[in-house]
């Protein structure tokens, strides 16, 4: 166990192992995404209320779900980096942010596009939408803070502090936004309840959620490898790697 932990902290080992993981995970992910998208777009029946526009669900819900989970992955990495002073945890945390931000962005944009045929408007200040917007701000804040530091080691620590503060706050933000909305607005707009979803629609959705998780992992690992190279650029193993 401890030796595994030690290995995790070793950049060359991590660089090698992530390389071999990506070699099979990435193609698999791309195939799963393609299959899920084609399935959802062309091979399922339309929703009886929303018609064909509901097909957006196959990208909207997976991206929203994974974007939310991503923040907790990031916060977990941040906590490890602060508590055990593990540099590779820094790297993981830093690499989560752009991936999470991209997925949040997708959820927002697809949601807005979905809203036009469904609600007749691109944007409403609905609780979940608002909190998704705040999540985007949180991700972008981490990215901006990291980029603003010159000393990348200090940048990692600063971002770890920020994400930890964020973890304490995220439940508060979500609860308060939820509550804010129900205070003003007896829910007039409803998402389709998850329970009412037909199995024939559910399977491709589950496939897409799974592939988005895999995609998150792939993008995370690729970003981590880049960051490892950048931080370790002065060390012998990178010079050997690059020279070769």
């Amino acid at each position, binding site marked *: 166990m401890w030796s595994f932990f030690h290995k995790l902290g070793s950049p060359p080992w991590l660089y090698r192992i992530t390389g071999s993981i990506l070699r099979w995970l990435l193609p698999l992910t791309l195939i799963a995404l393609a299959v899920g998208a084609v399935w959802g777009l062309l091979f399922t029946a339309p929703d009886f209320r929303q018609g064909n526009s509901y097909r957006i669900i196959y990208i909207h819900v997976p991206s929203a779900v994974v974007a939310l989970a991503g923040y907790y992955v990031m916060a977990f990495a941040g906590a490890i980096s*602060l508590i055990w002073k593990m540099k590779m945890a820094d790297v993981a945390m830093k690499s989560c942010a752009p991936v999470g931000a991209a997925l949040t962005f997708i959820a927002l944009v697809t949601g807005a596009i979905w809203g036009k045929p469904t609600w007749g408007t691109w944007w409403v200040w609905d609780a979940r939408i608002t909190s998704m917007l*705040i999540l985007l*701000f*949180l991700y*972008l*804040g981490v990215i*901006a*803070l990291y980029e*603003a*530091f*010159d*000393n990348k080691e*200090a*940048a990692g*620590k*600063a971002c770890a*502090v*920020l994400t*930890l*503060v*964020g973890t*304490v*706050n995220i439940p*508060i*933000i979500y*609860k*308060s*936004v939820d*509550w*804010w909305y129900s*205070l003003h607005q007896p829910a007039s707009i409803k998402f389709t309840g998850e329970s009412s979803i037909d199995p024939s629609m559910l399977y491709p959705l589950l496939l897409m959620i799974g592939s988005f998780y895999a995609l998150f992992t792939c993008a995370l690992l690729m970003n981590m490898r880049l960051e490892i190279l950048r931080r370790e650029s002065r060390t012998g193993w990178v010079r050997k790697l690059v020279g070769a």
Partner: protein
Amino acid sequence: MSAPGLLAFCGRLLRRQLVLALRRPVDIGNPLLFFAMVVALFPLGLGPAPAALAGFAPGILWIIALLANLLTADNLFRGDFEDGSLEQLLLSPQPLYLSVLAYVLAQWLVTGLLLAVLSPLFALMLGLPGAAVPTLVASLLLGTAVLSLVGGIGAALTVGLKRGGMLIALLILPFYMPVLIFGSAAVQAVVGGMPAASHLAILGAMLCLSVALAPLAISAALRISIDA
């Protein structure tokens, strides 16, 4: 000839910060006038319909409180960072937790407290019903303290950066939002004839949480920033 007590040190720090903030007599009047002017902006921008304004008065006052905090948060540590005072603070044998709390307290006294004390006047200007005023003051007192503490985290994280101006707003605005929601909801509840105790209790809980945790985050962030 012994090292000074902890509280004595924090007291001195607090006094220094206040003296710095209020060096000239006009300095006390300035935030006051500033608030008055910004309050006047809203009717100008939103249109003078009195009924609509009264309904939105709690929200407007809360947004102003929030912006005033945002405006001043960046300066909390910047001056001290640039002239080297912050290094000295970090090197001093005194525990950083309390020093940091003194910084935040001083800032709160000249923004949050001042605004809370003045808010009845502005509430009047915007036509808020008199019954809601005590709740407004109470919610501002509790909420602006939370804002100052959270703003301190953002200030500490960005103080070492050459251009912190906008970045700090990005970092802390998401954390300001719950305070804004509960603060304005408390006042709106009273306007709507409902009790506001639960909202105030939540604000109080947020304050306890942030008094306990924010100084830790600020201290950690300062130690990192000094090395940026």
